[in-house]
């Protein structure tokens, strides 16, 4: 097996240049690459395009990178949790592309899978369809959407091995597996890094072929946006 281990988040992200295009895993604050985001705050890299389903909250996740003005453009499906985001958008400091969530997921999957374009029904007849080719199949209308790829993927897994195999936990899987496959350099941070052979090959969610760098993360906060418990 091929060893992909790097020492830590700082080491993993140090060559991400200004104006890079990144994909960041996570749905809300669930399954986000906390360590890599912290490391990017330190490198001060800027002009980033970030592809991520959401944009974090004001003081966590990608929201932290918005505060430091490191992000030039967001490509997301839902960004409603973030006042700083709103301010930068309305002032014209931040560019934003909003994409239906399923289309975003499928475009990223297509990027990793060598499928340059595909038809989807989502957004037909809406402003999302503007300028796009449409076609009818079995009496229903579809839009042609293109793949999405990026320079770096920052993904967060539960367990990983030194050859890059990843297992996610719960709904923290979300966009992480597709992003891992859609980028030239995929950096995986994991809660538990183990030796090859310790993970059951039948339970791997992301095969190691998609991961170029992996490290054991630390100090996970795993902030909860809507802590909701059973009514007493």
């Amino acid at each position, binding site marked *: 097996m091929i060893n992909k281990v790097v020492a830590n988040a700082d080491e993993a992200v140090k060559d991400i240049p200004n104006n890079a295009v990144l994909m960041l895993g996570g749905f809300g604050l669930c399954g986000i690459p906390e360590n890599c985001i912290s490391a990017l705050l330190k490198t001060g890299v800027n002009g980033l395009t970030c592809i991520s389903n959401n944009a974090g909250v004001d003081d966590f996740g990608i929201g932290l990178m918005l505060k430091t003005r490191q992000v030039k453009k967001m490509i997301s499906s839902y960004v409603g949790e973030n006042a700083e985001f*709103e301010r930068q958008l309305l002032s014209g400091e931040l560019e*934003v592309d909003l994409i239906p*969530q399923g289309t975003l997921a499928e475009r990223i999957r297509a990027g990793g899978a060598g499928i340059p374009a595909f038809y989807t029904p989502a957004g037909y007849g809406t402003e999302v369809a503007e300028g796009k080719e449409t076609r009818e199949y079995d009496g229903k209308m579809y839009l042609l959407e293109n793949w999405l790829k990026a320079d770096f993927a920052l993904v967060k897994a539960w367990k990983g091995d030194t050859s890059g195999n990843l297992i996610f936990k719960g*709904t923290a899987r979300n966009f992480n597996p*597709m992003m891992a496959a859609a980028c030239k350099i995929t950096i995986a941070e994991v809660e538990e890094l183990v030796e090859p052979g310790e993970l059951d090959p039948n339970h791997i969610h992301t095969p190691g072929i998609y991961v170029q760098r992996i490290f054991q993360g630390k100090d996970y906060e*795993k902030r909860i*946006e809507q802590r*909701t*418990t059973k009514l007493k």
Partner: protein
Amino acid sequence: MLDKIGIAKRIAQEVQDGTYINLGIGIPTLVANFIPENINVVLQSENGLLGIGPFPEEDEVDADLINAGKQTVTTTKGSALFSSSQSFEMIRGGHVDLTILGAMEVSENGDIANWKIPGKMVKGMGGAMDLVASADNIIVAMQHCSRSGDSKLLSECSLPITGLRCVKKIVTDMAVLDVLPEGGFKLLERAPGVTVEEIKAATAGKLIIEGDIPEMKI
């Protein structure tokens, strides 16, 4: 007039045994609480869970297990976890039997607008466009009129569209209505204490009233 709980209870009556259901944020999420015990359904969460369980006990809370509204949840026995692309394969492929979601406006041909108010903040469509473009059976849960008193059941949507000709049924605080394939809101039931005249006055789109309109049983 129904409150939110009332709307959720009435929609729960539409839920059929043995089906897979996607519940939107807000009133739709409440529907889960009122599905009868003898009705077996499985709830799908667009962020990668089939088999959403009740909210957790304090000591069960798991940051890695949330629903589409970012609330902490649990899993039921027999649940399955998957990625976002697999979740939307499921949705887009028509495997989810029923989608219940909120709306700002519905037109008499079934168009829905629920993602954007131009000039105000744009939060994004999330999974709404995929859901409405994919589901065969869509029920909208909403207030009949906006806070300013304007009807939300229109001949044409004024807000940016989320999807075309997709809404099959609407349950509001005032009424239950089918959206007919040929266009028009067919009034099926009145909320307790609400008259047909009041519903007429609150519906801007084409309202179809045939025979006697019964009162809802909640």
